[in-house]
């Protein structure tokens, strides 16, 4: 199967195979991405992040459904953690999204983090591109359940939604420095529980103190995702943010930065690969001579760099 060609023609199996090739870094992946790249840049990428159990998957399902009702097609990347010990993973986000499985306008792919610590996997961005090239209007990226510092989602998403729930501690300070800084909007899920209003107040207080605030103040919606309540409010907030960043050039800035970061990432990966090839079989010798103090790492690197840039 010509994966890229078939994908662009709307073949779902080809899309699935493309993501596998990307994830496993098959040799053909670069070639596939090369062919898909010109067809990307059309989808709007919505990031959904928040602590474990906040209801991200449930919310993703409801948001996807709402977009489907508007006639938009949706791609979903749901990331769950890979065990650092065994390399295995339970990818359980689909459990909350079963009502979408048979909708041909939706494509859901689960990914393990595979060693990445930023809340996504290293290949999430490329998987998003595959969905984009496939023609999805909206791509929702759901991160792993995050703690305080897994903020890679801001690099991947156009709009980032931070999902919080009441009862996770009486003081918001604890999570202040991490994910709370990245929300373009906030949503308080399970807002039928005690403490929802207090949480809204605490988020507001935190925003009041934000000295870096632009003229966009992240709105806060109250949602009960399991019952679909408030999803319309959340979606309205997303739309508001979208027109805001489209209007003032921020979206363009975000995407420019993304393109640049990506270029540098791919370049670094290429160089790293080259280094491995060039030093193949010689590493042990280098280390030995370092241990014997015959040479030092700085001179060695300088020599190797010269050799490699030839």
């Amino acid at each position, binding site marked *: 199967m010509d994966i890229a060609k078939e994908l662009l023609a709307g073949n*779902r*199996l080809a899309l*699935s*195979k493309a*993501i*596998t090739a990307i*994830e*496993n*870094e098959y040799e053909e992946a670069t070639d596939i991405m090369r062919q898909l790249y010109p067809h990307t840049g059309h989808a709007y990428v919505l990031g959904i992040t928040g602590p474990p159990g906040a209801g991200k998957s449930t919310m993703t399902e409801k948001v996807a459904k709402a977009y489907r009702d508007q006639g938009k097609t949706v791609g979903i990347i749901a990331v769950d953690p*890979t*065990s650092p010990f*065994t*390399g*295995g*993973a*339970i*990818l*359980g986000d*689909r*459990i909350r999204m*079963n009502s979408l*499985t*048979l909708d041909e306008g939706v*494509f*859901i*792919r*689960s990914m*393990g983090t*595979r060693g990445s610590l930023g809340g996504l996997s290293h290949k999430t961005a490329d998987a998003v591109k595959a969905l984009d090239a496939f023609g999805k209007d909206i791509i929702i990226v759901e991160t792993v359940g995050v703690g305080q510092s897994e903020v890679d989602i801001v690099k991947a998403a156009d709009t980032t939604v931070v999902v919080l729930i009441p009862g996770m501690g009486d003081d918001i300070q604890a999570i202040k420095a991490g994910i709370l800084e990245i929300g373009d909007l906030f949503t308080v899920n399970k807002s039928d529980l005690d403490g929802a209003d207090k949480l809204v107040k605490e988020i507001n207080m935190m925003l009041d103190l934000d000295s870096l605030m632009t003229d966009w103040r992240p709105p806060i919606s109250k949602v009960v995702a399991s019952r679909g309540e408030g999803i319309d409010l959340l979606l309205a907030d997303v739309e508001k943010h979208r027109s805001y960043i489209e209007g003032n050039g921020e979206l363009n800035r975000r995407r420019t930065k993304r393109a640049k970061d990506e270029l540098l990432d791919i370049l670094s990966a290429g160089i790293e690969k080259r280094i491995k090839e060039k030093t193949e079989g010689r590493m042990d010798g280098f280390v030995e001579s370092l241990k014997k103090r015959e040479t030092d790492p700085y001179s060695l690197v300088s020599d190797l760099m010269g050799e490699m840039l030839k």
Partner: protein
Amino acid sequence: MEKKIRVLVAKPGLDGHDRGAKVIARALRDAGFEVIYTGLRQTPEQIAEAALQEDVNVVAMSILSGAHPHLFPKVVELVREKGLTDALIIGGGVIPEGDIPALKEAGVAEVFTPGTNTADVVEFIKNNVKL
């Protein structure tokens, strides 16, 4: 990067007992596989479509309701129809010995009954999966 084994663990049909499926999911995770668990009460159509979207190498089903003679072959048929020709399809649960030959005939590669050591399931997958 190594080719990671991806397994869809699914509960087709209407029985609500997923302890076994969860134990298996956990064992497969500990064996280093990526396990996509879809939860209870899945139709064969949902399972096949999830298998396609996730591009899994293995579809592992668990049934305790007695509906396996109908549901297992149906899943095999739909998964193949989707173009996942190489996917290894296995089943487990309360399956009478006498039903097993027909299930294998229908394309279920192996059937694991109560008392199976999870290590045997892992071993079977490792030996038979096509990557």
